[in-house]
């Protein structure tokens, strides 16, 4: 055997690849980070396996076995890690010069969530053989979405052109929730149509960012410089305030109709942040915050759920076994974890076979991680979200135009703000709202929506300079508006 045929074969493959216009590009940083992620997840799974062996031996009244190195859920973990490397391979083959940090960061967060789902009682939720298997399915679908968007999205015309169409889709989703929504724990978040069910507000947050990016980038100059004089005050241009008021009303509506405090808070916060990003006018933010305070005050007196949540937040220990139960137990979980935690599987004492917090897998994963990974683990998880946001903002500041900048900033801020809202709720810094911890919480809608975000961010991060999309064919109406505003 000589090297000749092999080299020749490789050359043939290369020729074929070039013919198909595939030019693989090595992604060394991503590969290194993914190897680290794989190592961390395997270590976590072994830790969980060892804890389980010790616990089982204890219950049987025996000495724990000498060999404790065993994976708790080898198949699930193998599939997930293989999935991560397959995404990496696809991105290498695609040959685009895109971000290499986002995938490993998302991968680690998703993996930590998966370990948590493996660790929790499997019958908490999920149709597909239990919590962990269902979560794995959604994670794999999420990775496929990331791959698809990161490889295929090469221009953004379909996003920027049809912003009002997207807005219509968003409103449609809201209506869908209103009509087909099912009340779960007093909140109308879930829509069930036939065998499918999901939480539209998760997808809505992506659509909202796309719409805002389109709207704000187009009207940026006007919003930045015009002003209206009302008496002694110079206010932002009133005609352009309309969407702001609309946003405020939508957020309020989401609260009143769906009792979805978390989503409303998220929408409004992201809206204000993007408004500031695009206009740099602090006055907008101040005005928005004033509207928020007024709205919140109104809701406190009108909506029982809001009042309950705020009262619990003020003093959860007033009724530790009733209304404040979940919040108090979450704080206890953090407290039990202490600095370094109990180790995966070592905490969350079960009462009658159930974990101490009912909504552990959806609303309180951070409390679970706080107990089992300790303060150190919490800081690491929070750090991962900051990395995601930092990458997103970096992509935004390097973007080719305002639309892409605001889009990238909005997408990453959605993840950052959402993580903050639920983490702060768990830690009693703000009232608790039922929103997911991105990539960690159990749930398909949340994972899919956040995967869309990461996929879009990776696509937006491409560094080759592409020609910008052609200007939109301006309508007669549009020309009139432009003339009037100028």
């Amino acid at each position, binding site marked *: 055997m000589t090297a000749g045929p092999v080299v020749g074969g490789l050359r043939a493959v290369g020729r074929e690849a070039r013919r198909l216009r595939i030019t693989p590009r090595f992604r060394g940083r991503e590969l290194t980070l993914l190897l680290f992620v794989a190592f961390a997840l395997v270590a976590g799974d072994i830790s969980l396996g060892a804890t389980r062996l*010790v616990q089982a031996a204890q219950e049987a009244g025996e000495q724990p076995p000498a060999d404790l190195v065993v994976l708790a859920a080898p198949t699930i973990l193998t599939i997930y890690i293989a999935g991560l490397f397959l995404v990496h391979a696809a991105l290498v083959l695609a040959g685009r010069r895109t971000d290499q940090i986002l995938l490993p960061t998302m991968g680690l967060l998703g993996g930590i969530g998966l370990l948590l789902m493996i660790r929790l009682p499997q019958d908490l939720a999920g149709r597909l053989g239990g919590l962990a298997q269902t979560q794995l399915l959604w994670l794999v679908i999420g990775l496929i979405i990331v791959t698809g968007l990161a490889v295929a999205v090469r221009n953004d015309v379909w996003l920027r052109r049809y912003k009002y169409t997207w807005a219509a889709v968003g409103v449609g989703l809201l209506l869908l929730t209103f009509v087909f929504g099912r009340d779960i724990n007093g909140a109308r978040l879930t829509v069930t149509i036939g065998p499918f069910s999901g939480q539209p507000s998760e997808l809505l947050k992506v659509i909202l960012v796309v719409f805002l990016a389109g709207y704000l980038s187009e009207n940026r100059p006007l919003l930045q410089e015009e002003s209206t004089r009302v008496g002694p005050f110079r206010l932002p241009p009133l005609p352009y305030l309309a969407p702001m008021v609309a946003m405020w009303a939508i957020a309020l509506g989401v609260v009143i109709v769906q009792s979805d405090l978390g989503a409303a808070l998220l929408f409004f916060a992201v809206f204000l942040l993007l408004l500031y*990003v695009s206009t*740099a006018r602090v006055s907008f933010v101040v005005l928005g915050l004033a509207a928020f305070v007024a709205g919140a005050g109104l809701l406190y007196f009108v909506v029982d759920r809001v009042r309950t949540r705020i009262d619990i937040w003020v003093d959860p220990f007033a009724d530790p076994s009733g209304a404040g139960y979940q919040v108090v137990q979450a704080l*206890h979980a*953090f407290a039990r974890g202490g600095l370094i935690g109990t180790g995966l599987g070592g905490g969350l004492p079960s009462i009658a076979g159930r974990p101490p917090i009912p909504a552990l897998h959806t609303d309180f994963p951070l409390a679970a991680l*706080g107990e089992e990974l300790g303060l150190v683990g919490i800081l690491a998880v929070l750090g991962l979200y900051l990395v995601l946001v930092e990458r997103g903002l970096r992509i935004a*500041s390097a973007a080719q135009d305002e639309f892409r900048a605001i889009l990238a*900033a909005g997408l990453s801020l959605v993840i950052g703000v959402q993580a903050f809202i639920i983490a702060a709720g768990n830690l009693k810094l703000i009232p608790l709202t039922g929103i997911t911890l991105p990539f960690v919480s159990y749930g398909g809608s949340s994972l899919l929506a956040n995967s869309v975000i990461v996929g879009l961010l990776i696509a937006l991060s491409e560094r080759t300079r592409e020609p910008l999309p052609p200007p939109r064919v301006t309508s007669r109406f549009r020309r009139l508006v432009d003339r009037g505003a100028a």
Partner: protein
Amino acid sequence: MAGHERVGGTRPPSRFPGGQRSAGHARPVSGSAPSWAGRRIGIGAALGRVAMVLAFAFGSLALGAGYWQVIESQNLSTSGDDAAVIAAARNVLRGEIFDRDGARLAWNKRDKNDEPYRVYADNSLSGVIGYANRQFGTAGLENAWNAQLSGVVSADPLRELTRKFQADPSDPETLKTTLVLQLQEAAAKALGRNRGAVVMLNPRTGEVLAMVSTPTYDASAIADPTTAEATFQALQDDRRTPLLPRATQGLYVPGSAFKIVTSMAALSTGAITPTTTYSNQPAAESKGWLIDGFRVRDGHHPMTGNKALDFREAVEASCNIYFAETGVRTGSEALTDYATRLGFGAALPFDLPTGTSQITNGGGSLPGGFKDRVEIANAAYGQAEVLVTPLQMALVAATIANDGTLMKPHLVLEATGKTGTTTVNPQVEQEVVSSGIAHEIGAAMRLAVNGDVGRFFTFGAALRTMVVAGKSGTAELGPGQEPHSWFIGFAPYDDPQVAIAVLVEHSGGGDVKASPIAGDLLRAWRNWKNG
């Protein structure tokens, strides 16, 4: 953040609507811009500020996590609301409880979820051992020694710190109590369907040998999760209040049994001597002794005739007038002082929570809070506002039996965990009276059981096999109510080893119910003692 401007600068301006207006994001505000708006900054700079806001928000999250996980960690994770503490109570096998001879009083079974629940040896234990149930909590000894029995709290702070790293963090302790199961059963049987209480203890050591409250209840049914709810509800609705541990928390008028307390104060302060007599006493018995417009009445003058009684005879005949006069002569200050030494006026130093025995309601102007001399006179023979717990009266008898020294009553001999055994040693609580005075009162109590006059009031308490000393009581409760029946005493007279208090609610005079029960139980004690 400079990237955006670089890219933006290279952009063909004409291809993006509005691009001309925004080209160069760091462009200073033109003259036409409103003055309030300040200097315009570009998207890059705005993104930087947003990033700072978010970093600040996440910093506050880190501080919040630090607060709960470091500063509040200890407080929260050891509180009773903590899931780990609750789970330990559910999952950990509570330590078993034994009587002093090794008979099992409480142990564990497992339900269908493999969670343990408590089982108790006998209903007679309900008033002292109590119960432990995950829904309804704990009572009695199960409550008082809960930390040791469930093993969640360790006395050693260093062990507490490293607890969560140990393979098995809990260390439930086994309790060996001072109780005697066969005496418990005998007492419950003797009280029968009556409501009442029996306390038996070793006067030399303060070890409680028997402590029974009736009606008893089935503590195992409360502990068993399948029957707990219904049982507990029924017991709470029961008008006979079986959940009240009468021996320690029931408060009753003591009647003549209280004369022993008055005797201690009177003899110790020298208000009377054993030979003191009151010349007006025999005559007063027909019409009552008048003090400040109130007549102290007495009912047994036919038996004593016209003789003026001395101290021993007054105890034997249980003469109310003698003690009313003695009480007034002793004064409320000395009475209060000696009652306080015996444990009145405060919860008793005991494993279980106790009711507070009192000699007056307080609030009066005389020392100790008495209203007037009439109240003192009536209190001196155990009426007026005197209220006592059966345990308190057992301690009164035990103090006489132990030469005037009150030993601290206790229920646990040993607590044994993985790390070793803690022993509870006898402890002197109070030197109440001198041994001479204790012997004088003891001699009078011997007559009250065995004397020609006394045995009519304490019928059934005297034994052929052993000399018993004691004092009966008939607590008058006012018109229309049967009096409470009391007996307190000790045995054997020459070398007291057991003190006893028997209370039977609304059952008539001391001789009717309490004295025969005391006799039965002292016989049972002797049988137990002789093996």
